[in-house]
Every structure is written in C-alpha cells, then in structure tokens.
C-alpha cells in the first residue's frame, strides 16, 4: 500500500503539477488548480522539460514558464544573442523545442497589467512579483548569497519543484520569513 501511495505521489510530481503562488496567505491566483489532476508527462514531454532545465538552468535558475505569458517568452527567445548581457544562443533545433515548450506552458493570465503595455522579460518586474516581495528588505536580496531577485532558489527552498510556499522560505543569513 505504501508503495502504491509513493508511486502515485511520484506520478503527481512527475506530472509537473506546479503550485505557483500557493502561498500560506489566501491568494488571488490559482493556476495550480488546473494541474491538480494533471496527466503524467509523456516521455517526449519529460525530455523537453529536461532540455529546458539543462539549457536554461546552466546559467541561472530554470524559472517555471508559468511565471510569464507567452509574449514575454517570445521576446526572450528572440533576443538570446543578448540575454541579460550575455550570449545565450542555442542550436536551431533546441531553440525551437524550448520556444514551443515555453509557449505551451506560459501563464494564461496577463501578468503585466499596470505595466503600461510593456512586455516583461524579468519575472521580478511583474506587478504580482513586486507585490509578493514588497516587504523584503533590499539588503537581504543584494547580499552575496542571494545576489538578486533572479535567484529564486536562494530563498525558496523548494523552488526547483515549483513550490513557493511562504513556510518554505529560508533567507540566507536571516532564516525563515514570518
């Protein structure tokens, strides 16, 4: 029985049911609901997700595509030759695969309301992100062990699995965020 339970948990995890914004406080966005009964990923989907994590995660945290809408990812993929100051170009096949992956997993919500029509390429410039992090003192973010808001996993201990609950936060050299 334990085995079956373990297996189904594994299946759920593999299904990539990301719990974005599943905060402890009640929250307006409930994207995770649509993946609550997500189908397990096919081998094809698994290899695509692995390619994304390998390629984009080589230099920085592999942000879940659900954090930005398709228009943002399209803009990012069009400008990889000058990606936040570095050349992040990919071979044409991988570029296409990753672009499609981002497009199909992008947020269905417009996360840029209030940005005056600008297309965000940083998750940290979206109003929702700013709201969620408004109380964090700057020094906690700019310290050497974090560097910037781009480094989700420095504080969100389960960020890699797509979980950003407040009780999982451990800020380096400061501890929990209560």
């Amino acid at each position: 029985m334990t085995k079956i339970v373990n297996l189904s948990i594994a299946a759920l995890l593999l299904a990539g049911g990301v719990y974005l914004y599943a905060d402890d406080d009640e929250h307006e966005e409930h994207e995770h609901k649509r993946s609550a009964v997500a189908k397990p990923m096919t081998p094809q989907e698994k290899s695509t997700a692995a390619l994304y994590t390998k390629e984009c995660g080589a230099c920085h945290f592999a942000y879940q595509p659900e954090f930005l809408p398709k228009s943002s990812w399209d803009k990012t993929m069009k400008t990889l030759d000058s990606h936040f100051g570095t050349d992040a170009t990919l071979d044409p096949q991988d570029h296409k695969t990753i672009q499609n992956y981002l497009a199909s997993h992008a947020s269905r919500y417009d996360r840029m309301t209030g940005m005056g029509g600008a297309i965000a390429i940083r998750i940290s410039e979206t109003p929702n992100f700013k709201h969620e992090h408004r109380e964090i003192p700057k020094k906690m973010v700019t310290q050497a062990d974090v560097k910037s808001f781009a480094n989700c996993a420095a504080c969100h201990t389960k960020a890699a699995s797509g979980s950003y609950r407040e009780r999982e936060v451990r800020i380096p050299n400061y501890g929990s965020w209560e």
Partner: protein
Amino acid sequence: MKYLAFALLFSTSLMAASPEVVQYMNELSKTAKAENSSFSGFDAARGKEIFTSTHTGKQGKPMACTSCHTTNLANAGKNSLTGKVIDPLSPRANPQRLTSTKEVTKWLKRNFMDVYAREGSAQEKGDVLTYIMKN
C-alpha cells in the same frame, strides 16, 4: 598518411577529449591552416593567454574567461552575473567536459562573444581547447 592518422589518434588519446571532439579539433586545424599558411598546430600556451587575459566584453566591461571559470580549471567556477556554480572545465576533474561537440561549439561561441565581443577564429578555439585539455 596512415602513420600520420595513427600518430594523431595516439597523441589525442593521451589528451582528454572524446573522439567526436578530437574530430572537431581536426576540422578546426584544417580551417586554421587554410586561414593562415604558417599555422603549425595548436598551442596550449597561446590558449592560456586567450583564457586568462582580460578584454572588453559584450557588456563593455573588463572580462576574462577566468572571471567565471577561475584560474584553476580543476576547481568549480561561478557565473559572475548570476552566482550559479559552474562545474570544473578540466576534463580530468570533470569527465563530462570535451565529450560533446555540440556543447563545445555552443559554449565557445557564447563565451568568445561574452569576453571578446566577437567569435573566436579556428586557431583561437583550438588553442583554448588544447589549453583546457592539458589542465
């Protein structure tokens, strides 16, 4: 000719790169020769100079390969922008290195752009790979 191929195989088997990367370096060597008739083989010392010298990079700021990879290739490095740990470049410290031409060409293109704000020549790429192999 057969002997040359054999000698080449033998000498490269002492170096730490997979057959496909060795093949890639042989192609670089041909291109280097075509571009410069006095070219007489890759050189780790020139590669070291390429790797350790500072240049005005893509961002218009001083940058070197060592800014991220450090001067000891057997050690892990750190992405100077994001802080993400970079596994050692030395194939002796990290057997995954120099095993895939796809990875090698991708990073050479990107990192020459980042540090030199241009792509590397065939000779420069071969020199830097030779330096990495010997470290």
